[in-house]
């Protein structure tokens, strides 16, 4: 039916708005904020796509999802075909549909966005992925090629590792993922709160991989339990995707006071270990009534919104540049504001003060103003003389970034690193060691889920070629 629609008819449809939980009530629980689309809304939104021939949206997607094709199938009401296209191109569509910065990727390129609003590609991806999860039985087993007899080890069960594992399994290779933590998902599980990405979504995506024959071994730390050299002996190829798991410290006085957390610790306690969230959890956390989160990225937004949910009356983002310069997704900033988060902009922390018992009590800050652009092209903040003042706090969370974890590389001197300690690779993800590939944050430093997935997909293709040449 929709196939008969004219472009004019398509252009007349307004962009869908996704229902969200009410901000007041949601800011006190961990339920998912975005509620998804109804089938009618999804089909209607899909009909907004004008099916342009140059497929700009695909060029904007780091994993190259066949966006117009899956949207066309959806617009025609053919969900099975839409799901087949989407899951073929993207190992974690339900994750991407929730956490990708679509507004700077696929939707930024959408032709409909030139004179109006782009097609809600992220919402549609989420809808189709969730439909696929709910209808696994109906979709049936994915046909797989005969086993090649080749075995690939994947280090890390985060977005890059999961993506590469899926791609390689679909080529018939035997894949084992080694994960250092006790559960799957990497940063998806420990780093992204449930109100943005429910754990059931990660479980479903991992289950899809297991159904392809992928093996996951948790509690194995490559570089400690097994070395890269041991993996090289046991497997035909290795893909390293162990993330950028090492917090960058603020390096200001008072950082070791009680109540000062790195974002990784704060989020891991809550997301991975259930502190303050799961009544059965034995993991403690200092909740805090006045919480200052330092940083302006998605991780900072996750921390500050978590703080609200743990009961903070004042939950503040402290960021040294202006709001326009914040790297966080527009939607995360909007959601945080709706939930009562205070945005303290152009403010740089210089010291953390404590009480007599060693608990954090104040965050000493300087006001900043914007000066000349720095090497990244952003105007750099300059301190305003004599502007130091104190903010009363009882928890401080440092969310300024992460760097490469040296655990694996310290025991693999044969791997070439760059000057920041990240693994050096060529454009295909090949490292200095034959048969060893790397991708995600361990190569690029802290970045996004989708860029890590793009690396996983690209490296899997390169590994497949390499295995075929041998």
């Amino acid at each position, binding site marked *: 039916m929709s196939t008969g629609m004219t472009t004019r008819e398509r252009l007349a449809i307004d962009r869908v708005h996704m229902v969200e939980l009410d901000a007041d009530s949601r800011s006190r629980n961990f339920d998912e904020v975005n509620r998804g689309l109804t089938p009618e809304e999804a089909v209607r939104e899909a009909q907004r796509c004008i099916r342009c021939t140059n497929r700009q949206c695909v060029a904007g997607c780091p994993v190259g999802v066949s966006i117009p094709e899956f949207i066309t199938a959806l617009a025609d009401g053919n969900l099975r075909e839409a799901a087949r296209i989407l899951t073929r191109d993207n190992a974690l569509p339900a994750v991407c549909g929730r956490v990708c910065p679509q507004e700077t990727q696929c939707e930024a390129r959408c032709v409909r966005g030139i004179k109006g609003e782009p097609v809600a590609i992220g919402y549609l991806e989420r809808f189709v992925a969730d439909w696929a999860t709910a209808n696994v039985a109906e979709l049936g087993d994915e046909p797989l090629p005969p086993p090649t007899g080749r075995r690939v080890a994947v280090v890390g069960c985060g977005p890059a590792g999961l993506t590469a594992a899926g791609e390689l399994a679909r080529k018939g290779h035997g894949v084992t993922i080694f994960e*250092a*933590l*006790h559960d799957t998902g990497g940063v998806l599980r420990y780093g992204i709160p449930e109100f943005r990405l429910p754990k059931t979504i990660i479980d479903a995506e991992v289950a899809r991989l297991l159904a392809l024959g992928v093996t996951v071994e*948790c*509690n*194995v*730390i490559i570089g*400690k*339990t*097994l070395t890269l050299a041991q993996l090289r002996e046991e497997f035909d190829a290795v893909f390293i995707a162990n993330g950028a*798991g*090492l*917090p960058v*410290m603020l390096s200001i006085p008072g*950082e*070791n006071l*009680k*109540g000062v*957390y*790195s974002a*990784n*610790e704060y989020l*891991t*306690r809550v997301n991975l*270990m*259930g502190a303050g969230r*799961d009544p*059965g*959890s*034995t*993991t*403690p956390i*200092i909740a805090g009534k006045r919480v200052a989160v330092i940083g302006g990225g998605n991780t900072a937004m996750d921390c500050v919104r978590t703080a609200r949910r743990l009961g903070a009356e004042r939950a503040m983002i402290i960021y040294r540049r202006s709001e326009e310069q914040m790297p966080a997704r527009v939607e995360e900033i909007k959601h945080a504001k709706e939930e009562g988060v205070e945005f303290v902009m152009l403010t740089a922390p210089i010291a953390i003060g404590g009480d007599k018992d*060693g608990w954090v009590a104040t965050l000493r800050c300087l006001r900043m103003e914007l000066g000349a652009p720095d090497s990244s092209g952003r105007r750099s903040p300059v301190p305003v003389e004599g502007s130091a003042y104190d903010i009363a706090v009882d928890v401080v969370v440092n969310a300024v970034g992460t760097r490469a*974890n*040296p*655990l694996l590389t310290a025991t693999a001197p044969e791997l070439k690193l760059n000057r920041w300690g990240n693994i050096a690779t060529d454009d295909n993800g090949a490292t200095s060691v034959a048969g060893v590939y790397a991708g995600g944050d361990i190569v690029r430093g802290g970045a996004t889920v989708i860029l890590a997935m793009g690396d996983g997909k690209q490296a899997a293709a390169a590994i497949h070629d390499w295995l075929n040449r041998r």
Partner: protein
Amino acid sequence: MFDVISNEVLAPNLHQLVVRAPRIASSRLPGQFVIVRAEAGEERIPLTIGDADAAAGTITLFVQAIGASTQRIVAVPAGGRLRDVAGPLGLPTHIRNWGRVACIGGGVGTAVLFPLAKALAEAGNEVTTIIGGRSARYIILADELGALSRELLVTTEDGSLGVQGFVTQPLEGLVADPARRPGAVFAVGPVPMMRAVAELTRPHGIETVVSLNPIMIDGTGMCGGCRVLVGGEAKFACVDGPEFDGHLVDFDNLADRLATYRESEASHVCRVAGKEVA
């Protein structure tokens, strides 16, 4: 899942578990630790690998049951299973032949000391071991440590075994005597004990290694929760340690950070023991 081969009570609230973990048994070195959880949903607990048998594929863990999660670990009987055992983590002990070394263990720290003392003895050091505890019931591994030491000295606070007093008293005698003075001292135990040992050896310039036990989450350097101040610099005990130069450690800061969750632990009612855990 990791099979528990045996579970014995060594002292009040202190258990010795032998666990099947073949990869860890063959890759671990003295000074390293594992992260353990009995069940899903529990806190990740760092535990020193007390010993290992690579041929049998087993490791030995000493577990002091003090909080909810450690209570659950010691409650797993022989034949039962631990859900997660991850490791080996941390840097191994730097072992060399100093000639004479002193190994000082306090309470459950004696268990952490054991693999170090063993490795030091195997490297040809003449080991003097001093272990202490509240009373005779809390003195552990005396026979095992005695077997590899030239001399084993025991102190108890109530005098029920060995000399009444603290481990620092016999150590003072050692360092004061040029004929017995150790080339290096290894101290593992409560923070005040390690601090006292470090202060005692400092004026003599004796290399002193302490093994720190800060609050730790992932054990791989990811969270930074285990940061300790060493020589004025923030170090992560999980990847830079757990052993550090005792003369450079900020023990005040360590003790303070260890107290972070004291209140929440104190009010926690243990689901296994069914009572409040001190």
